[in-house]
């Protein structure tokens, strides 16, 4: 299990590949990998967005993500999991978050990755502040419900 907070841009595909290569003990064991990647849009709530700052609570963000992954591992037979979240100044098209889960069968991979992602959205202390094309700045007030 690996949790990373990145202050610099990251390549989610490279992260998945290097994690899978470094975790030798799972070769041949997993039959399913579920991957979620969240990417920054250049629009939100009807406005053009040209950038975003992601603030976090160093230490608590990692602690909460570890708890969330541990909860997923208790509920599903997870072989391995990788969570990467970007912080700092980001631009449209930059990856924001990666959740990858390796399991034996697809149902568990889908369910565990969905659980991690939804729990991250409501419990990981991270906050987005948008910079609009109009130069106005605004904090996002809440995340949308992923199940609605």
């Amino acid at each position, binding site marked *: 299990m690996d949790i990373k907070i990145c202050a610099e841009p990251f390549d989610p595909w490279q992260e998945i590949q290097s994690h899978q290569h470094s975790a030798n003990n799972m070769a041949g064991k997993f039959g399913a990998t579920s991957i979620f990647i*969240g990417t920054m849009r250049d629009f939100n709530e009807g406005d053009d967005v040209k950038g975003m700052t*992601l*603030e*976090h*609570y160093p*230490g*608590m*963000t990692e*602690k*909460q993500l570890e708890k969330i992954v541990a909860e997923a591992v208790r509920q599903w037979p997870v072989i391995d999991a990788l969570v990467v*979240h970007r912080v700092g100044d980001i631009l449209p098209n930059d990856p*924001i*978050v990666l959740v990858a889960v390796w399991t034996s069968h697809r149902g568990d991979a889908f369910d565990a990755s969905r659980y991690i*992602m939804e729990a*991250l*959205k*409501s*419990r*990981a*202390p*991270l*906050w*987005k*502040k948008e910079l609009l094309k109009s130069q106005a700045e605004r*904090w*996002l*007030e*809440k*995340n949308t419900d992923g199940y609605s």
Partner: protein
Amino acid sequence: MSIKVRYFASLKESIGRSEDNLAFSGLVTVGDVWHRANPDKALPDNSLAAVNMDYVELNSAVKDGDEVAFFPPVTGG
């Protein structure tokens, strides 16, 4: 006892500080910490609170050396 208080995101901006260090005596809750640190400002209804990086309710007790944090709903992911 001494308590470190931290603020994040829009709440940090609205009160104009990122942290406080306060001294207390007696039984103190997380809500008491907010009121002492910000006597003229009510904690916004949707705020979240943490002690030592775990979520807590405002009636949770704090102890010497704790780090208390207040922040708005999270918007990561």
